Structure formats: C-alpha cells, structure tokens
C-alpha cells in the first residue's frame, strides 16, 4: 500500500490545474499530475514515486476530448486506452495500445499516463512518432502546440508544471497502411522484447520502436537504411542494426543479443506485411 500521504485535487480547467501545481510547488508539496494513476499507485507502494499532492486531470474537458474533424484527430491525454481502442478512429494506435498491459488495466491506463509515466516502454507514443503529430502542452507559460519530434526525445520533455493535454494528428495519416507487432519473452503476456509500429507512405516505410532500448524511438537514419529498394531486405536490416541507439536492453525478458535476433525477425515480418510477398521467407 502507499504508506505516505498525499493531497488529492481535481481541477476543472487547464488554468486551475497549472495554478494549483504552482501553488503546491511553492508550498513544497511536490505535486504531480495524475492521469490513469496506475504508475503513481504501483510505484508509490514501492516508494519509487512519492508526491505530496496529486492533481487529477480527468475533470478537464480538453483532456478527455476524442474528436475527428475535417483535418485532424484530437485525443485527450486522459482518455483510457480502451476508450481509444473502442473508438478505433486511428487503427494503428488501437492496435499498438491494445497490446499494452491487459484489458482491465487498459480501462485505467491513459494515453498521457502511458506516454509521460516512468515506465520506459511508452508504446502508445509510437504511432504519433510515425505520424509526426503535434502535442498540446499546458504549463506555467500557457498552452502550446508543438510538433512531437521537437519535444519527444526518449521521453516527453516537459518543464516543471507542464503536462500533456492532447495529441493532434493529421486526418490523412489515420488510414495509411500500417502494422504493429509486439514480441514477448514467451506467449501472449508480459513486457515487450521488441515492439515495432510501422506505416507505409508514398515516401517509404516509417518505423518506430520500443522494448529494444529503455526508450521508444524513431530514427531517420534507420528509415533511410530500411528504405533502399535496390538492396535485399536482410542487407537493409543489417545496416539498420548498425545504427541502433544504445543501450540495447538486457534484462529478465531477454538478453540484448536475443533482442537483436527478435528485432531482425520482426522487421522482416513488418516489411513482408507492408511490402508484400517479396520478403516472405
């Protein structure tokens, strides 16, 4: 159980939330934003996260938005993963999100919580890295909307007092051919060894990865390596491996060596699915 005490607040506007954070911060109450809260609870019971106050964002309407208009899809950070899967307006996101944790847990885990939490897989961010979405962030200096690649490097780089409000994606990107595959140590449950989300655009295939390293990433260099149609797929994958970031995870799910093996196979499966039969082994 969580043995320390914290105060609980549930503001109803963005402004209120930001103000609250500021005030609690001054009072040295170590505030933290609370979305799904699953990490705060599970890490809190181990004393790995010890806020003095939590600010629940669920009452803030902007955080629960799920809206498709002529040009964009807007998704609030406090949407649960099951709400997102059910609406299914962004199939790649639905697929990727549906492999995170288990169904009942996903009734609580939120988009914002998965992306901004401490657990480093953050698989829900992969589709947005591929679609070059924009993130809406609220903070002491107001509300800003910036391309995700400007603020996401291994994790969402938020200043103190800032929190993720929404993610905005181009409507055109929602129905692009895409694939998401998650590989685990054994069978169907557990943390990822490797998760790859990919989409096929006119320019080529975009790929984003989680589980391989202690952060999700998308790499231009790797995409260049993989999108060389004159080379056989295996050769392209070998090139890509040379440009992987470090470290490659080595943990109870699998060694780094084995992860590379799984990575290679999964990339082959991804490309076979998106490029057709030429790569089927």
């Amino acid at each position: 159980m969580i043995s320390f005490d914290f105060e609980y607040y549930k503001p109803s506007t963005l402004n209120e939330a930001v103000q609250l954070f500021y005030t609690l911060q001054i009072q040295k109450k170590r505030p933290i934003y609370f979305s799904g809260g699953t990490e705060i609870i599970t890490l809190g019971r181990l004393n790995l996260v010890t806020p003095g106050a939590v600010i629940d964002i669920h009452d803030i309407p902007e955080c629960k938005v799920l809206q498709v208009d002529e040009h964009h899809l807007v998704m609030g950070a406090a949407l649960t993963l099951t709400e997102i899967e059910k609406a299914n307006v962004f199939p790649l996101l639905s697929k990727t999100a549906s492999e995170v944790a288990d169904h009942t847990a996903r009734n609580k885990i939120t988009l914002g919580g998965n992306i901004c939490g401490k657990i480093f897989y953050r698989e829900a961010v992969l589709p947005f890295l591929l679609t070059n979405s924009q993130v809406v962030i609220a903070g002491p200096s107001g509300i800003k909307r910036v391309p995700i690649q400007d603020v996401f490097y291994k994790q969402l780089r938020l200043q103190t007092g800032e929190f993720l409000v929404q993610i905005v994606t181009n409507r055109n990107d929602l129905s692009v051919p895409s694939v998401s595959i998650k590989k685990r140590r054994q069978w169907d449950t557990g943390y990822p060894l490797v998760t790859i989300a990919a989409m096929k655009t006119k320019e080529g295939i975009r790929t984003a990865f989680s589980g391989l390293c202690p952060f999700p990433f998308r790499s231009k260099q790797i995409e260049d390596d993989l999108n060389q149609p004159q080379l056989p797929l295996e050769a392209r994958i070998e090139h890509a491996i040379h440009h992987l970031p470090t470290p490659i995870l080595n943990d109870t799910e699998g060694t780094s060596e084995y992860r590379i093996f799984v990575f290679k196979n999964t990339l082959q499966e991804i490309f076979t699915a998106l490029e057709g039969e030429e790569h089927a082994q």
Partner: protein
Amino acid sequence: MHNDHMFQISATLDVNGEKRMATFRPADTLLYVLRNQLGLTGAKPGCLNGDCGACTINVDDMPMKSCLMLAIEAVGKKMTTIEGLDGTPIQKAFIEKFAFQCGYCTPGFIMNCHALLKQHPDATDEMIKEWLESNICRCTGYQEIAEAVKSVLTRYLSKNNQ
C-alpha cells in the same frame, strides 16, 4: 514530516446500489477501502500491483482492478462488487462447469465476465480471451472457465433453446 499522522477524508461511495459512508486517506486504494472499511472482502488482494486481477470489481459497468484505483477516484461512480451479484447466470455457470477450485480468483473472474457479458452478450472467443487474460487462475487450466463463459453467451443459449 508526514510520519506523525494519517490524513483522512470522509466521502460517500455508491456500492452495490447502496450509498455507503467511508473514511479514508487519499492515498488509500479502492480495494483497501472496500475490504477494510465497508467489509466487502469478496475482492481480494493478490498482488496490489495490477498484475493478477483478483481485486476486479465493476465501476460504471467496466471491469476495474480496484488495487489500481484510489478510493477517492471512485466518488461519484457506481460500483458493483461480487457481493452485489446474486444468482446471475455466470455465477451458476461457474458452479456447473467447475470453473474454480480454491475460489480466491473467482470473484475477480466473475466480475470481469459479468461486465463482458453485459457489454457483449455474444462475445467472440477472441474478445473473451482479451478480457480474461487480465485475471490469473492458478488452480484451473482455464478450460472450465472458458466453458462457463461460453455457456451463457446468447449464441449458446439460443442454440440450446432450439
């Protein structure tokens, strides 16, 4: 520091159709408050980490791991625990299909199945698997649980009525 007190609040929780008064800390989980304040010990602590599903209840008709929810988050929501179900087809099916042995995971499983059947009375095998993967049973091999759920699906019931 905060070691010299436990800050408590009072609130009303809507459980099994009853408005129940409770006093708890903001940091207390819903599981803890249900069990230790309201005497509803049907939801069980199996891991307190969201990994096993033994604490599953229904919140606004959705299955929820009550160890992953703060009690304070539950204020204003409608909760059903195993004690709130009486003579439902799924409970009967669990008995008839021998879908439990030690019984510890059973309330969590039944609550998950109950929510599933309410939302998807004719769920596919795939959907059943997706939902029930959330609960661990260490005694059975899940085969009887599968049979229990399937026996109350609309397609099975209508087949049997022909």
